[in-house]
């Protein structure tokens, strides 16, 4: 058995940082004497860690979760390119059951962290829109799958690069994503075509918008439909991000700067 421990011990040998994903207090304290940078990545800093990266979504996909944590830690200067870190996280249960060793370098940067933290819209708003889209993808409209397109941030420019398909139900209203009633409203309005436009502070500016960006040079995976194309293209033309719920495969995808950054399966949440 000693040999097994030795060979698996290589996994955490000579690491520069220890990343704990959503650790319990006792799990966190176990590493009090460890002589490396200890970074906590969780929804909230329950253990009072000095180095903390807030996790806006649960990220069922472990790769996305790690990427988000590492990018966040790099952004805040907890680790630098060239460091090797060990990540302890829970893949199957609620307790940490997985250790991942990885090398931090610039190529890790996929933009997931920037998508949430560095977008024009506030991080909380981005998270709320994700939650609405995931919720919509899970339940659909009366049991049938629905598609939806949310353009978040830079609303003034987006409004000028789009035209109304119908009367705007949100005109002169002051609803924000994250308000309790909003999920129901969005669900109803998602039956009709067009995009939702959400401002930087989360106000729902309009529904039923037909986006008219120039789709030149937008490179999104083949096989995605007009909704994704429109969403991807508008993020190239403006500083907005687009969160798209696909009607055909039920996935939630996020675009920024014309690139597909994140793909989430609502069924896993």
């Amino acid at each position, binding site marked *: 058995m000693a040999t097994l421990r030795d060979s698996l011990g290589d996994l955490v040998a000579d690491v520069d940082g220890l990343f704990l994903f959503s650790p319990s207090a006792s799990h966190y304290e176990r590493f009090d004497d460890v002589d490396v940078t200890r970074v906590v990545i969780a929804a909230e800093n329950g253990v009072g860690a000095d180095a903390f990266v807030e996790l806006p979504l649960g990220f069922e996909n472990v790769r996305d979760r790690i990427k988000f944590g590492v990018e966040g830690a790099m952004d805040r200067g907890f680790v630098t390119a060239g460091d090797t870190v060990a990540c302890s996280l829970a893949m199957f249960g609620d307790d940490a059951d997985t250790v991942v060793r990885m090398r931090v370098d610039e190529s890790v940067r996929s933009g997931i962290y920037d998508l949430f933290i560095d977008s024009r819209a506030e991080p909380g708003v981005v998270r709320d829109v994700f939650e609405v889209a995931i919720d919509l993808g899970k339940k659909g409209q009366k049991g049938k799958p629905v598609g939806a397109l949310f353009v978040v941030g830079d609303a*003034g*420019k987006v409004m000028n690069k789009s035209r109304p398909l119908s009367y705007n139900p949100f*005109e*002169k209203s002051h609803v924000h994503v994250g308000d309790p009633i909003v999920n129901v409203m969005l669900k109803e309005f998602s039956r009709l075509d067009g995009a939702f436009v959400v*401002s*930087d*502070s989360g*106000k729902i500016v309009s529904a039923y918008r037909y986006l008219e960006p120039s789709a030149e040079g937008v490179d999104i995976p083949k096989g995605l439909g007009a909704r994704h194309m429109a969403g991807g293209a508008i993020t190239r033309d403006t500083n907005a991000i687009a969160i798209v719920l696909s009607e055909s495969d039920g996935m939630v995808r996020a675009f920024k700067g014309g690139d597909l950054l994140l793909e989430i399966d609502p069924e896993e949440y």
Partner: protein
Amino acid sequence: MQGGSVRAALSTVPLRFWLALGTLVLGVLLGWLVRVITRRFLRRAGVPGAIEGTTFERTAREFGTSTVAILGAIAGYFVFGIAVFAAIAVAEIEYVAQFWNAVAGFLPQLFLAVIVLIVGVVLGDKVELVVSERFRGVKLPQVNVLPLVAKYSVFYLAALIALGQVGVATAALIVLLAAYVFALVFLGGLAFRQLLSAGAVGAYLLLHQPYTIGDEIRIGEVRGIVQEMDLFVTHVEAEDEEYVLPNDKVFADGFARVRT
């Protein structure tokens, strides 16, 4: 023989004493009932949840009781106290009545004062909790003063009302309160006047929406696309620059909607 002497003893006790005893028993029953009902009522009203975490409640818990139980007990004893006085009156015990009459007039006020004090203390604690919760996002040590000020303001008011109830001269304290309120209103108004006027204009702008997000407008020298509008400010984005204009400026300068 035995039965006859007991009956004789009983019959020597005047009827009014029996009535007084009955009143006392009734008082005990009523007091107990009021106590139970008060507790139930406060629980139904969600009081225990609302005051959870306040210092008074925690102290009460340490003594194995709770604020709701204490309030219930006070209400119960109050009713019982009334019954005692009623019993004394019924029994027509002259010399006692003369002394207790003054007390009887005073007692309800004392009870009220105690209840006001307890409510005040609990309310003050609660206000402190709520305010500090509100400011938790603001990571500024000086902000801790605000919850304390709010708490002691409520304490002060409660103490003032309680003292007024029991008839202590509170004129000086009321002058102090007036000065405090004046400072709060006057200086607050002075400090917040910009925000107030921006908020007043903002209410109009949000209700009528003469312009909305996506419109191109010109306010004074600034021309650009409206990105965001809330109660206090309007964000106007021009070339590479986002202006954040207080709403009162929109009214002071007027605005032009640029039609394209």
